């Protein structure tokens, strides 16, 4: 088993959590959407899935922290408990 078990999810997390200059334009937004549409789930569902993966992989990766996850998904419903 590879260190990164689900690489396509890892790529998407990297995009979501990338440097501001990579996400700041419409072009980069399209980039994220392109990746999402590559045979994967609809964005809302996938976002939820990504969150689960982030939490599960937190121990192994050492990142991101709880606060970072919250920041990453700061548009999510308040009732979602990430802890």
């Amino acid at each position, binding site marked *: 088993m590879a*260190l990164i078990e689900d*690489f396509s999810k890892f*790529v998407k997390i990297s995009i979501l959590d990338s440097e501001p200059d990579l996400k700041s334009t419409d*072009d980069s937004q399209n*980039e994220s959407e392109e990746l999402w549409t590559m045979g994967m789930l609809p964005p809302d569902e996938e976002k939820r899935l990504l969150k689960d993966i982030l939490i599960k992989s937190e121990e192994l990766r050492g990142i991101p922290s709880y606060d970072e996850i919250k920041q990453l998904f700061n548009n999510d419903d308040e009732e979602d408990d990430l802890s």
Partner: protein
Amino acid sequence: MKKMTFHKVPTMSVSRHRILSDGDGVVSLVALYGCTLHCRYCINDECHDESSISQWFTPQELFDKLMSDDLYFRATGGGVTFGGGEPLLYSDFISEFAKICKGRWKINVETSLNVPLESVQKVMTQIDHFFVDIKDMNPSIYNSYTGHSNEMVCSNLKLMIDNGLEGKITVRIPKIKEYNTKADIDSSVKKIKAQGLSYIDVFDYSINKQEVYSRTSSKHGKVVCEVLKRVRQLIADANAIPYETVQCNVVENCVGTCPKCEQELKYLSEKIWEKEKKSINVKL
């Protein structure tokens, strides 16, 4: 015992750091020269022109060249994808490469399967995944588009299925302008599913490279760079290797790697390989 020497094979290119396009994980795409088909809209038509050959490799030479991305391959479940051209024209080479590889990296093949049965038999148990471009299952459409019969394609698919390799095959069915219709594609999908294959990729075939390039974001390189940077950080963390990445601000002209990124990768690789030489367990 005398060591076997292996003839070199011609390649058109070795493309590093392919992500989400040619197999799982980080992949290097090795484009081998030559193809028996003459597809009307071949996107790599230079594979019929000898001047497109850029380098010749023995299996060991290719393995050595690809070693620079060893950590990326192993940490992401990636490896090498042989494309072309038709890579199974060089099945002896691929088989020998797989023996050298010893399962260290995943080995994929992008093929038309329009090759003699023996070429498939030689490698089919050594390949992790086959991406099979069947064009269309209708023999007359296939013949009209490629100039060849699809009999060998069908018999090779059957051979692989009979050997229980269904799970290692992704069948690609392109929608080809002026050659097949939605009904033709539906018919091909039905025939493929009837054979027990479930990984099927139906897509609109781009008939020229310009069209493909225009779909690629100008920031694609930076995305690759960002992903690889995170892979390196993860490897360092998992193996307690002191590591600090250099933050760079290049976005538009980034090609996915640069001398600084390569330097960081080399540093990590040497640390990991050193541990392995001392039989220290590493996490990859």
